[in-house]
């Protein structure tokens, strides 16, 4: 048993405790929590509070809201849901609302936004996807899992909690399918061109023989190295690649980015998948499917335009 890791989950959710204190600080205004939402991907959180500010004594006061965990007032609405243009001032670690500047209303809906550290997020949820897919003839499949690790503090405070856009990056391997889908004359043209360029550079005696090889293949495949490189980049861009990626609900596809294009050609494509979790659904699983056969057909087709 890895006690260290288990310990880490116990060390309290500081940011969440601060939120609890925020609620306490606002207790004279009988705050009603409408919702708390954590946007995992953006690492921000917004919470909606309903503050009760009765006419009379409270009116003379200033309302102070401690800016715990970097939360700031983002928007405010009166009881008729008209937007209040005044959102107070920030001073000495607090948000101060001068009640005389507020429109006449007994209730205010305050929307606050704050950043959630990566560390805090790690303690709230965890996502997994395997390194290797299950490979079939036509498609590769990757399982995806996400689960809430600890939201007990949140549950005690907020009635409504959602952790949205929980994302995981699945590295979809494309190497082989890409490699076999490039038509033979194009590979040969590149190969002979590479050999020829090397021969020219080093003044090799084989130059004229290589030249005739290259001429032969370049008649069959007409493309510059730059054009081929551009086409590879285009095929691996999110726009084209997304046609071959399918995902089970409750997951959705986020962005698609080629993985670290070391030596110009990416090893795989990073597909970001997202889902939402809440008290009713504390864990979710699904599959990501890469239709590699169709992808191969598409690659061949795209390269065919270079063939004569």
């Amino acid at each position, binding site marked *: 048993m890895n006690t260290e890791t288990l310990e880490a989950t116990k060390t309290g959710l500081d940011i969440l405790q601060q939120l609890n204190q925020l609620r306490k600080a606002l207790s004279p205004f009988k705050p009603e929590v409408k919702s708390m939402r954590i946007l995992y991907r953006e690492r921000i959180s917004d919470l909606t509070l309903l503050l009760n500010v009765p006419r009379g004594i409270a009116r003379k006061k200033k309302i102070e809201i401690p800016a715990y965990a970097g939360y700031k007032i983002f928007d405010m609405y009166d009881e008729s849901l008209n937007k209040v243009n005044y959102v107070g001032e920030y001073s000495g670690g607090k948000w101060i609302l001068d009640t005389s500047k507020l429109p006449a209303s007994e209730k205010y809906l305050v929307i606050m936004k704050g950043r959630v550290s990566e560390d805090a997020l790690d303690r709230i949820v965890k996502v997994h996807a395997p390194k*290797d897919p299950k490979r079939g003839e036509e498609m590769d499949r990757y399982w995806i899992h996400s689960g809430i690790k600890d939201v007990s503090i949140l549950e005690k405070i907020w009635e409504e909690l959602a952790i949205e856009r929980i994302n995981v990056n699945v590295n979809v391997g494309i*190497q082989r399918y890409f490699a076999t889908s490039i038509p033979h004359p194009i590979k040969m043209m590149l190969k002979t061109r590479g050999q020829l360029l*090397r021969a020219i550079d080093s003044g090799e005696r084989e130059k004229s023989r290589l030249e005739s090889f290259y001429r032969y293949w370049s008649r069959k495949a007409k493309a510059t190295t730059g054009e081929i490189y551009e086409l*590879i980049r285009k095929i691996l861009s999110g726009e084209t690649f997304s046609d071959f990626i399918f995902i089970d609900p409750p997951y959705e596809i986020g962005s698609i980015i080629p993985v670290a294009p070391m030596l110009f050609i990416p090893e795989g494509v990073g597909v970001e998948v997202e889902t939402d979790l809440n008290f009713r659904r504390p864990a979710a699983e699904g599959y990501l499917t890469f239709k590699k056969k169709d992808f191969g057909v598409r690659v061949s087709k795209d390269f065919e335009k270079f063939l004569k």
Partner: protein
Amino acid sequence: MKVISEFIAPWALAKEDIPIHMIWKSELPYDTIRIRLPEKFKVHELFNVDEHLAKGLTILIKRLKTSNYFGLVVFASETYKENLTRKEITIEFLSHGEVKYSHTFTARVIRPLLEVMKAPEKIVVREDIDPRKLINLSVKYSGLGTAKIAIKVGHKGATISYTDSLYRQILKRLINEKIFLSHELKEVVSREDIEIDPESLKKLSEEMVERMKTGRGILPSDIDQETLREFNEWIKDSKNINKLMNIVYSEIEQLMIGAILYYLDRHPSEDIELIGGITKTIFKSRVKEMIIRIHYKDSLDNEYEPIEIPIKVDDQRKNVERIFEAPINIEWITKRIGPGV
């Protein structure tokens, strides 16, 4: 008990996280949840657990943080010999020691497995024999997951092996043609047909410098000590990164062609990745035996027992001064297994 969801990751490599969860609906009168793990398994994390007790391979959960849900992440701490190993994880809900509900999850630990199907016992090295067709092996891949393979050749005499990676090609050009010693920077000709983002060019150059410094990426075999010393000094001088970037840029088309071809060569089969491309062996002086070693790892870099293939060499060359270079040709037989899900 109405179970809403019972999940275990359908497959995983050794040491890879295997998430498991259970979500149930109705209340169940339990005071303890007992988890029994198979041998060699370890727990990485528990989800939504407030209090627990771990005793060897048994974990007793005494209290959950919120009701009706818990999860755990386990992993196989060692690799297995078989390409698919099934292990059972049992979860029991106990009330006063009596099992009220139980569920058995099957963890499937996968691995790539290589076996030699065909290899020559003996090869004859002679000037009139085509070296490209000399060494032919047939290797079977079975299992699930990518095998990252490095093939090396050992010997008693002077055969050496190398892989013609892109780094090596660049190194060869840098050193053999002594580009790094020229005082003038090569003029960079901008090319209309190839656009390279300067940031990725810089990254590539920096990565190359790092690799060259650490000695990864094999140095050309015929490099003399003096040149090597000069080169090592040159590469350590941070001022030279710009120079290298210029070299990389001026050779961009060749590098690109090299990258595309290298990429195509490196994946002879979907599940196989040849680290550094195809291995070649050079026969210098006469040898009587060579050993081909196939080292392999999975995607998580778990190393598996290497395969050794001893081959007798009958070197009948008249002139051993001339370099005789032969690639290790491998025919891959793939027998992929499904995890059974």
